[in-house]
């Protein structure tokens, strides 16, 4: 039995090729994900361990409970604490660490990095063990800095150049004193790191005379634990916390492992989808192989093989195919892992170096997945093979494909589909997080249901394409009929494509809707020409607002200033605005009362009003940070959004009570409106500060769009694998169909259909099947996108369904392209068929 099974594998090499490829791709995806994440994780852990090499014990301020009203009670790590640390017997040296946001401009004055990854720090003394210098020397005073080697490389800056940079306030133009290397992850991810000498760093980061952390190095022979003990005794209790370098490293390692496992799971989900799609192809292939071998199998039964033996022979064949696919897939996966790393390196993110990690778990997972999936998918066809009666060996006629009734299947499919739709619809009425599980369950039921129903759906949907196909004459007519000839096979082929397109469309619909709604939240109701903010989202210093107010061509400005207060025993943040011009800068709808901000008159958004049970005319007492109290009156209630919300008070009213005002952003209206000149004017007024972003509403929208585009592109990339597998499925089905129908094709050629006609017939069949899968997938995807949106809509008030018609049309086109590409080879084969062989009677 075993030998016959293996012989069959060899006999049908070509026909099994697509199956092997499909399984191989899935396995490669799985093992590639594992290899890549393991490699990355190991390398990151190594490099992070290296990063803690100079730290034996870290001293940090012990933060008080974050609750409580008082601000600024964080204990400070002063020079005295540092000196005390350095003085314990086990300590060899101690260095202080201080850092924060630092924006460096490139040669064009543009910010390097994206604002969240542009950092600054201090260089300790004349030789800092953390940052080995590759050029120049240590920085001294405010006029000198160091930059990291990657930033130097990207920007083209060298030692001696002057750069523009900004920490929080004014623009500085220090000289580059040197260049250093670092393993810092943020820098590796495309950020920048600038180092000042310690006093300058302390001053710039607003922590004069204090440190964020003190790193203590132990004397040779003193253990980390012993040093920690000494430090704990020497330093004031309750004020500082000590952590050994080993602990820091292991905490870091855990964080890395956790983030990697998230990434791994994400990748594996997509690998799973690709494999799931692959099972359709495997099942299809084995079904066809069994059908083609009916006589052979019947003969085996006739000469005494039991049903179980027949099933087993099919399964052994599947095992062999799965094993080959798994082994090649594993090899390809290791390659993918290596490729991913160099790809990410090429894209700018330096992956820390390290050997490629292939664990035994990866190998085991790859082999198990490949072999099990193949055998599982071949199991049903194997059972069907066993049911072939021995007498089939005697019949001279080709056993006609048993047109088994689809009634049971359709009933089952209708049940699943109905249940799926019902559950999804029920889930949409639930609240965000509650609805997630039922929604996922409903989605799975619905996909299964539609899959079971595809044979039924294929007839009417493909018939609908009839009028178009008629244009192509006989080839079109035959293509249509061939496509519905074996509904099960067509269904399995189309389903593979359907699943990929369902996910792609669903994600796109969700992303488009989300993007639009977030866009609306961020920029709706803003009439100002420009929104000025810090690149890293921090608060602006108040002089930015002042400079903008007096800048040339500016007609109105208002900062959004934050001020904590206590109202009704609760901490409530007041938003300080320039009441007199705020109406010109925004377009907030007033729900109740009047839009009036000034003196004790304030406006509040609907949510806040509801919380406090206020309406126009209500008044309340606010206690400011300086302890003073004031009675304020609600002049109006407005419809708030994500950016503009809360209690809006005139800045003049707030000013006496706020000692260090800071602005979230400044709204600016200029006489020239939004123009390059106006923007340049503002930029100049602010001293061409790289840390400050000047955005129009359009810029904000584009920024949001960019995030979604990146996310979608990543998802598309991952789902592409499922589509590729689906393409293999279409190729497979067509190749098998061409093989099975070779006699028909020969006859058609004999009675006068030319090669082009034959090719066209196969291509059109492929196109019809692919478009069928595409239409189903896009339809389902839109439904899921809508349903998921209903769920998200409960959390996002501005959510509304946006159907990206252009994208959907593109996806349908993609399905068509899939169909045409998949048909290339089978159509060629069909056209090349030897007519005489084909029409020769058995």
């Amino acid at each position, binding site marked *: 039995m075993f030998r016959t099974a293996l012989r069959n594998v060899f006999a049908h090499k070509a026909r099994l090729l697509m199956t092997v490829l499909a399984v191989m791709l899935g396995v490669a995806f799985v093992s590639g994900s594992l290899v890549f994440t393991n490699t990355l994780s190991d390398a990151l852990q190594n490099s992070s361990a290296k990063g803690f090499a100079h730290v034996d014990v870290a001293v940090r301020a012990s933060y008080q409970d974050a609750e409580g009203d008082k601000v600024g009670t964080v204990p400070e790590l002063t020079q005295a604490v540092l000196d005390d640390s350095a003085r314990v017997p086990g300590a060899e040296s101690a260095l202080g660490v201080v850092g924060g946001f630092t924006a460096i401009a490139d040669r064009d004055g543009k910010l390097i990095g994206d604002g969240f990854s542009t950092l600054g720090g201090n260089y300790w003394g004349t030789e800092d063990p953390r940052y080995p210098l590759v050029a120049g020397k240590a920085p001294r005073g405010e006029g000198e800095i160091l930059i990291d080697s990657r930033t130097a490389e990207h920007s083209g800056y060298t030692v001696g150049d002057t750069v523009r940079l900004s920490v929080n306030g004014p623009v500085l133009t220090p000289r580059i004193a040197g260049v250093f290397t670092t393993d810092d992850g943020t820098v590796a991810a495309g950020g920048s790191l600038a180092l000042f000498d310690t006093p300058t760093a302390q001053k710039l980061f607003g922590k004069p005379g204090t440190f964020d952390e003190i790193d203590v190095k132990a004397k040779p022979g003193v253990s980390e634990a012993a040093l920690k003990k000494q430090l704990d005794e020497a330093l004031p209790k309750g004020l500082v916390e000590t952590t050994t370098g080993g602990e820091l490293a292991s905490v870091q390692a855990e964080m890395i492992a956790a983030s990697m496992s998230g990434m791994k799971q994400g990748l594996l989900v997509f690998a799973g989808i690709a494999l799931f799609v692959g099972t359709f192809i495997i099942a299809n292939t084995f079904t066809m192989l069994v059908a083609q071998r009916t006589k052979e199998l019947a003969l085996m039964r006739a000469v005494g093989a039991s049903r179980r033996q027949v099933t087993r022979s099919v399964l052994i064949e599947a095992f062999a195919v799965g094993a080959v696919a798994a082994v090649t897939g594993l090899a390809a996966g290791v390659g993918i892992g290596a490729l991913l790393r160099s790809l990410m390196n090429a894209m700018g993110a330096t992956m820390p170096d390290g050997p490629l990690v292939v664990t035994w778990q990866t190998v085991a997972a790859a082999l198990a997945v490949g072999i099990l999936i193949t055998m599982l998918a071949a199991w049903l066809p194997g059972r069907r093979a066993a049911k072939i009666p021995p007498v089939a060996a005697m019949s001279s006629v080709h056993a006609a494909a048993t047109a088994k009734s689809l009634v049971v299947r359709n009933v089952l499919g209708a049940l699943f589909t109905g249940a799926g739709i019902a559950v999804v619809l029920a889930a949409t009425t639930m609240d965000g997080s509650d609805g997630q599980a039922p929604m996922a369950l409903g989605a799975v039921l619905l996909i299964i249901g539609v899959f079971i129903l595809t044979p039924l759906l294929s007839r009417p949907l493909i018939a609908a394409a009839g009028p178009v196909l008629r244009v192509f004459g006989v080839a079109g007519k035959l293509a249509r009929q061939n496509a519905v000839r074996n509904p099960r096979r067509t269904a399995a082929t189309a389903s593979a494509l359907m699943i990929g397109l369902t996910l792609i469309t669903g994600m796109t619909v969700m992303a488009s809707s989300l993007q639009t709604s977030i866009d609306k939240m961020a920029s709706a109701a803003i009439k100002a020409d420009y929104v000025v903010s810090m690149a890293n989202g921090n608060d602006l210093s108040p002089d930015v607002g002042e400079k903008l107010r007096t800048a040339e061509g500016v007609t109105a400005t208002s900062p959004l200033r934050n001020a904590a207060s206590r109202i009704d025993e609760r901490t409530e943040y007041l938003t300080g605005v320039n009441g007199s011009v705020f109406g010109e800068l925004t377009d907030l709808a007033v729900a109740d009362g009047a839009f009036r901000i000034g003196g004790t008159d304030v406006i509040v958004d609907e949510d806040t009003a509801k919380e406090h049970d206020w309406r126009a005319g209500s008044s309340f007492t606010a206690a400011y940070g300086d302890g003073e109290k004031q009675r304020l009156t609600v002049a109006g209630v407005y419809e708030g959004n994500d950016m503009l919300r809360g209690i809006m008070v005139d800045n003049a009213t707030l000013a006496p009570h706020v000692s260090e005002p800071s602005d979230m952003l400044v709204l600016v209206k200029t006489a020239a409106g939004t123009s390059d000149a106006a923007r340049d004017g503002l930029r100049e007024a602010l001293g061409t500060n790289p840390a400050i972003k000047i955005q129009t509403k359009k810029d904000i929208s584009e920024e949001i769009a960019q995030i979604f585009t990146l996310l979608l592109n990543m998802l598309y990339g991952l789902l592409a694998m499922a589509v590729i597998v689906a393409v293999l499925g279409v190729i497979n089905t067509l190749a098998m169909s061409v093989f099975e129908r070779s006699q*028909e094709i020969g*006859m*058609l050629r004999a009675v*006068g259909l030319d090669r082009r006609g034959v090719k066209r017939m196969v291509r059109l069949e492929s196109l019809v099947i692919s478009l069928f899968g595409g239409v189903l997938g896009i339809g389902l995807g839109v439904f899921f996108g809508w349903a998921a949106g209903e769920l998200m809509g409960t959390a996002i008030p501005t959510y509304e369904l946006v159907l990206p018609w252009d994208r959907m049309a593109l996806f349908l086109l993609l399905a068509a392209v899939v169909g045409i590409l998949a048909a290339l080879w089978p159509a060629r084969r069909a056209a090349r068929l030897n007519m005489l062989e084909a029409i020769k*009677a058995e």
Partner: protein
Amino acid sequence: MTTASLADRSTTVAARATELSKIYGQGETRVVALDQVSVDFRQAEFTAIMGPSGSGKSTLMHCVAGLDTFSSGSVRIGETELGSLKDKQLTKLRRDKIGFIFQAFNLLPTLTALENITLPMDIAGRKPDREWLDSVIGMVGLADRLGHRPSQLSGGQQQRVAVARALASRPEIIFGDEPTGNLDSRSGAEVLGFLRNSVREMGQTVVMVTHDPVAAAYADRVVFLADGRIVDEVHAPTADSVLDRMKRFDAKGRTS
């Protein structure tokens, strides 16, 4: 040709092979399937080609019908020389000028009987001549079966559809490759009857390969092939006379 008189037809050649050779392989494995065969198929004549297995009878038919290429010699269908034609032109020739009836797989299972009959014309994008089509369908007795698919028809009915398809486009010549090979004797007789009637009544030209002396007896002329050569010819054959000739070949083959 349909306008030509019956008298003309009997002398006009519908297809002609001249010194036709077909050689497979080279050197040691060289097989001569056809060895300089020259034969005429006259219009309105029903010719049967007979011969033992491997005699080259099917190869001869395939070459003359434009289904296969040949090594040397020439083949003419009407005025057209086949040797110079490319695949595309050959396909067109088969579609417009030749009708085929095979032993099996004559019909597309997805098409109805009527659609199968008009298939060559559909491929050409031509409208069938309704009157002629009706008379052909009437002759083979399929008027009440036109909407059926091949799987709903008996083997004999399927072959009758194949005969109707071959006749429907009024080809210059019809080739049959063991058209009754898979049929019981009664259905076979019916099909052969239709073919003979088409020759007698419609002036059709039919060439049929067979190994059955009873089938060959329906023809006007029987051409005998052996080892790729024409070895004999019988006019107005009967089953007995054909069987007799065949026996003689067998005997000759064994003694020589």
